């Protein structure tokens, strides 16, 4: 039985909420107007404890009033900012009712319930949150500390409307890591110089300053927690010696005076050191007391003892979520007299779809058959056979290159032994999977540019680069070695893995082998090898992934085109399967949306690059296309997609009658949704790979990883949102799952993302790692 981390607000599909209407009046700077509605609702929520939403959310198009979930008359609320001023005035009209029976009210109801829940979390629990992240809350105290890092439980809450079911409230659990010590410790001037240096280096490592990041901090002013970015160490400056400070139109002689005026209960010593930080969305960097600031630590940088604690198994996750509901008590929505069903939501069987994994085709016609049943043993065997088949039959297709040669470029300072071992083991793996001989040319370097010069003497080829972690070097490599197929490993990681290998623990050797396998598999992918493919055609002949990098400075497109082999795997050719991925600079990083004109051009270009080498393209255009947009189709992207589709049809690259579906796919589910399986024994386990839950005709939750291969933590499902009907959504879910079986980087493990999206994701991460950020 499938269960989701959702509790349904009672009475389910017959839910109604009474709301009052209020008007917004007054003068304001027009420039602020687009944000004012949101500001009013946030203010009513945080200061007045009232759940309010813009009326437009309830289908009142063009309506500029707000709807407030209260039966009482609202006293006029006055709000003012630097250049605006307004009043929220009760409209004096009769109460209105938002009803779940009316689909136009679904969004509004979900939002009102969510706001009411968050108000109650703030008032009825001792959880804390970070400013600007209203849905995410942390436990008061860390649940584990090790080596100066504190791990906090993090809870994310959201609401979703499920047609015919009601409003579901999702609570999920995660882990946040912060340094136990404040920045006053890391920049303590009273310890010996050597210790100062050690602490500062540790700080730089924890916040990834060497990778070009500023360093994310958590500032606690005793009332609120705010994310800040590191700008400058104290260098002898203290709270009393910062010099004059001007904030929100008021002047203070020093930071100390500011704290005393604004936060009288805060204990701040005059000689307490300060650090300069910047706050997102605000102007100049400012001084803050160093002992009020802790560093936020990425999961990659936590000590070994904490590495696995963010992997929360389904049973434990369920228990922790139940704990939150318990904390919220009998009135989880406070003033909104609503309750939730006591149990987590278990969708009816008709809403649960078990998508079978596909049969896979390898080199020399090796086939891994699909599991015949949903028995866990059959799935185990299926995933295990992928690796065995790769070792036995090799890759499905290897591009023809004249010389099987890899240049291994490494710094002279790297351990010769580690490099030699990496090369030997990698080449052995390549030989096994390609049945071809590979030679390696070592290229040691003192400065990277000398290696570049050496490589430029030969034709473009394949290079395994051992580099430092600097974005500059990575970019230099990519930029100077254009046309080369590059696989980067960092010197730091290589030496860590090699050290592990030589250790006494058997795990060290296992981790080394995994590292080598990953390196070799990645090298093959750089060379356009097709490791395996699905034996049978998917619903869609091609999948196009569209993805924007996390900082919106790049976007990527990836087209996976798999032709039907007409049941003749023996006659398969490399051109039956192609994937082209292109990462591009995004000119407007302040916006998530991709410009529609550029998107249209680049989709066309990507399809063309993928098809044109195939001589059949003109006569044999793509017959069906699934477009996967990571996140949302935003701005005018829809126009861009439509323009591209039209042009592709006009140019004969896409059949005139080709079915084209667009599906939004959320890698990081905004709704914090999870699913797990309740076994007949009552045991809570991960759902099987390929389990999908239809939330409505246009929304489905799909878990691509699961019980057969996930040994730690809970599977993170993907939320798919289509625009057609239930049937097309399930077709898309099937192909997304099939695409995820092309998990070439880790054959024995299920992969969360379909290959096309995995490629865009990897490319965007590579670009982000090359970006020089701090200079501006």
């Amino acid at each position, binding site marked *: 039985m499938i269960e989701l981390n959702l509790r349904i607000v009672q009475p389910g599909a017959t839910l109604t909420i009474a709301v009052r209407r209020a008007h917004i009046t007054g003068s304001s700077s027009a420039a602020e107007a687009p944000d004012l509605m949101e500001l009013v609702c946030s203010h009513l929520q945080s200061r007045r404890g009232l759940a309010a939403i813009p009326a437009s959310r309830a289908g009142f198009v063009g309506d500029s009033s707000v709807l407030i979930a209260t039966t009482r008359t609202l006293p006029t609320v006055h709000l003012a900012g630097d250049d605006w001023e307004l009043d929220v005035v009760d409209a004096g009209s009769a109460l209105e009712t938002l009803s779940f029976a009316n689909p136009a009210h679904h969004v509004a109801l979900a939002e009102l319930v969510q706001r009411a829940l968050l108000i109650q979390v703030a008032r009825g629990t001792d959880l804390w949150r970070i400013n600007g992240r209203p849905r995410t809350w942390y436990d008061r105290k860390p649940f584990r500390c090790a080596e100066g890092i504190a791990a906090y439980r993090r809870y994310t809450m959201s609401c979703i409307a499920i047609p015919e079911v009601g409003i579901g409230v999702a609570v999920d659990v995660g882990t946040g890591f912060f340094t136990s010590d404040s920045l006053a410790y890391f920049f303590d001037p009273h310890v010996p110089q050597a210790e100062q240096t050690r602490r500062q280096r540790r700080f730089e490592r924890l916040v990834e300053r060497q990778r070009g990041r500023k360093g994310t901090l958590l500032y606690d002013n005793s009332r609120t927690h705010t994310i800040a970015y590191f700008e400058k160490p104290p260098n002898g400056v203290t709270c009393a010696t910062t010099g004059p400070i001007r904030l929100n139109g008021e002047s203070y002689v020093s930071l100390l005076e500011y704290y005393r005026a604004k936060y009288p209960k805060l204990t701040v010593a005059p000689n307490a050191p300060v650090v300069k930080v910047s706050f997102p969305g605000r102007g100049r960097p400012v001084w803050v007391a160093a002992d009020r600031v802790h560093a936020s630590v990425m999961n990659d940088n936590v000590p070994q003892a904490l590495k696995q604690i963010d992997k929360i198994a389904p049973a434990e996750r369920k228990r922790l979520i139940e704990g939150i509901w318990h904390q919220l008590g009998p009135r989880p929505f406070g003033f909104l007299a609503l309750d939730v069903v006591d149990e987590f939501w278990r969708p009816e069987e008709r809403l649960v779809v078990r998508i079978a994994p596909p049969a896979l085709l390898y080199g020399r016609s090796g086939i891994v058959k699909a599991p015949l049943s949903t028995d866990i043993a059959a799935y185990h065997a299926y995933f295990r056979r992928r690796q065995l088949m790769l070792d036995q039959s090799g890759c499905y297709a290897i591009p023809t290159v004249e010389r099987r040669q890899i240049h291994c470029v490494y710094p002279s300072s790297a351990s010769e032994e580690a490099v030699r071992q990496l090369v030997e083991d990698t080449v052995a793996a390549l030989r096994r999977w390609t049945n071809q001989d590979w030679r390696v040319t070592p290229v040691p370097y003192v400065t990277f540019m000398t290696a570049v010069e050496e490589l430029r003497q030969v034709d473009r080829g394949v290079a395994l680069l051992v580099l430092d972690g600097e974005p500059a070097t990575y970019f230099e490599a990519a930029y100077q070695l254009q046309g080369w197929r590059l696989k980067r490993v960092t010197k730091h990681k290589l030496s860590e893995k090699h050290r592990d290998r030589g250790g006494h623990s058997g795990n060290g050797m296992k981790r080394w082998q995994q590292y080598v396998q990953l390196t070799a598999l990645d090298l093959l992918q750089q060379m356009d090898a097709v490791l395996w493919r699905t034996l049978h055609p998917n619903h869609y002949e091609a999948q196009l992934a569209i993805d924007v990098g996390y900082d919106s400075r790049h976007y990527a497109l990836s087209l996976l085109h798999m032709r039907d082999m007409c049941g003749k795997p023996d006659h398969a050719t490399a051109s039956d399967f192609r994937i082209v991925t292109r990462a591009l600079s995004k000119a407007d*990083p302040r916006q998530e949306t991709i410009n529609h004109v550029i998107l249209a051009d680049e989709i066309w270009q990507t399809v063309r690059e993928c098809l044109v080498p195939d001589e059949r393209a003109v006569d044999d255009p793509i017959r069906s296309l699934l477009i996967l947009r990571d996140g949302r189709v935003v701005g005018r992207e829809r126009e861009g997609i439509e323009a591209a589709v039209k042009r592709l049809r006009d140019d004969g690259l896409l059949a005139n009658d080709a079915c084209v579906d667009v599906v939004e796919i959320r890698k990081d589910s905004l709704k914090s949704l999870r699913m797990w399986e309740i076994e007949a024994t009552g045991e809570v386990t991960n759902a099987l790979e390929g389990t999908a839950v239809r939330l409505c005709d246009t929304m489905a939750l799909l878990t691509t990883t699961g019980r057969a291969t996930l040994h730690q933590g809970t599977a993170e499902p993907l939320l798919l949102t289509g625009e057609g009907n239930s049937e097309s959504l399930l077709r898309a879910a099937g192909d997304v799952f099939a695409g995820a079986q092309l998990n070439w980087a880790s054959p024995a493990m299920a992969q969360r993302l379909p290959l096309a999206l995995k490629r865009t994701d990897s490319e965007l991460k590579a670009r982000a790692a090359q970006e020089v950020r701090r200079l501006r």
Partner: protein
Amino acid sequence: MDPLYQPTLLDLDSKPSASATPSALTKPAPTTRKVTNISWSYSRRSMFEQCVRRYYYAYYGSAARTAKSDAYKSELRRLKVLTNRFERSGELLHLGIARYLRAAQENTATNGTRLMEWLRSILRRDIAYSVRDPEGLHPPNDQYPPKLLREYHYHLQDAERLLEESEQRLVETFHTFTTHPDLEVFRRAGSTSNALIEHRLRLPKRALRVDGRLDLAYQDGGQVTVVDWKSGAADGSGDESLQLAVYALWAIDNFSTAVDHLTIYKVHLTGPDIVSFPVSERMLTLARIRIVQDIERMMAMERYGNAGVVEAFTATPYLKVCTQCPFQRICQEGKQYLHD
């Protein structure tokens, strides 16, 4: 010739649609190389970062040789000459300082008060012209015509007060420069004959097409100093200034000096605050790469700009950007943002 149209020194990949950087998964690059007309400058990259629509208007829509089909060509050209009070007072401050130092170099008696009056008169002339002809329909045909101020062109209600404030700030900052004892060291060094004042910045040795102007640079013994005047107050961001890092690249090439013998100062004349910029080899590498990355991004838009495809340049409506943008009249998104 406008530096924008000189042939490139930057050797980049030929595919204009894909970025020049080969990602790990791209195909081998073609053997042909693209020639770009793009010349990097700090102001150009700043505008690109702020709003690509404004960037289009400034570098393509209003340019004579590109975007010839742009329906607003003549109006864009007219709007391009608008300058706002911050830009104009900054420009005049730099002009005054350069005059002061050059006069000192030539051993001409430098009278700060007289120079200050001269600067005020220029600004007042700008104001008078802007009041008289806010649309800029009858620009004077002088050798040094007055500038049309954006505040008057867009009929800001408090334009007069805003310009008065700017004039006051100009007077104060210039007075600080000419009289403050902490700045004597720069006044003296800038008066020596080998000091470079308002010097054109180029980086020919680095195969980077960079354009700019630096305020003051001089060599004293083995030590090279570069000074950047700022009319505002220090904001604590000096450590990561791309602009200053580019000055460092130039200084190392121009004076054939080493990083250790180079000092770069940002001098904030509101205060004054003298902030030194930490120069290191790493910082120089990062600056060079940042420039290449900037040019890549600009190149990705070049074909659209040349063809006048304004829709490819997404407007980024943002209060601080739109309220200072000379092209506000043309930009629908900006207008809508400001007036909704």
